[in-house]
C-alpha cells in the first residue's frame, strides 16, 4: 500500500532564511505527487504537483519541489521564507484504485517563522 512520510512534525526558521520540508513516499509505480498548504482553520491549497517530466517543479508563492526517484523523495523548498508562510504543509501521493485516483496525505509539517 502507498504511504507518505513527513519526518518533521515542526520546523522553525527565521524570516528570510531558506526552507526545506521533507517528504518520502512508498509506492510501487510512478507516483503522482502534490504539496498542499493549510492555514489555521482553513482548507488546503495546492502549492504544486508532479506527474512526469522535469523533476524540479515550480509552484505558487515561490515554492519549488524536486522529485528524486532514487530516494523516493519529493522535498519542498523555498529560498527565502516570509512570515506569511507560517502554516501546515502536507505532502500527498496519488494512486489509482478501481479507476479512481485517491490522494494519501502525510501527517503534515508545521512551519513556524520567527521574525
Amino acid at each position, binding site marked *: 500500500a502507498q504511504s507518505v512520510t513527513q519526518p518533521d*512534525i515542526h520546523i522553525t526558521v527565521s524570516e528570510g532564511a531558506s526552507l526545506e520540508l521533507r517528504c518520502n513516499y512508498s509506492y510501487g509505480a510512478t507516483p*503522482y505527487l*502534490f504539496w*498542499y498548504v493549510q492555514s489555521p*482553520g*482553513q*482548507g*488546503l*491549497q*495546492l502549492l504544486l*504537483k508532479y*506527474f512526469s517530466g522535469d523533476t524540479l517543479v515550480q509552484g505558487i508563492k515561490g515554492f519549488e519541489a524536486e522529485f528524486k526517484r532514487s530516494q523516493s523523495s519529493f522535498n519542498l523548498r523555498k529560498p527565502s521564507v516570509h512570515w506569511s508562510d507560517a502554516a501546515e504543509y*502536507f505532502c*500527498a501521493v*496519488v494512486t489509482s*484504485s*478501481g*479507476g*479512481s*485516483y*485517491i*490522494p*494519501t*496525505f*502525510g*501527517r*503534515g509539517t508545521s512551519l513556524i517563522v520567527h521574525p
Partner: protein
Amino acid sequence: SQTIHQWPATLVQPVGSPLSLECTVEGTSNPNLYWYRQAAGRGLQLLFYSVGIGQISSEVPQNLSASRPQDRQFILSSKKLLLSDSGFYLCAWSGGLTYGYTFGSGTRLTVV
C-alpha cells in the same frame, strides 16, 4: 469557475445526536468527491470517496456514512455521534488527476 462549498463551518453536537454535513460543487460536472477527517497532529484520513451519483467507497469502518444524491452534492452523516468523531472535516473534489484536488474550507465538529 469551479467552487466548492462546505457547511456548516463549525458545529457542536452532543454525544448520540445525528450528524449531517453537506458539500456542494459548482461549475463542473461528474466530479470525484472526497470526505477527509483531520484530527490534531494526525494528518488527513480519507473517509469516503465517490466517482458518481450513488457510488460511495468507504475507506475506514466507523459509524459515519456518506451519500451522493446528486452529481455535485456529497453528504456526510451519522446516526449517533461519538466523542471520537470530533475533528475537522474536509470535502474535496477533483475533475481528474491532472487537475489536482480542491478542498472546501472545512467543518470543525466538536462532540460533547
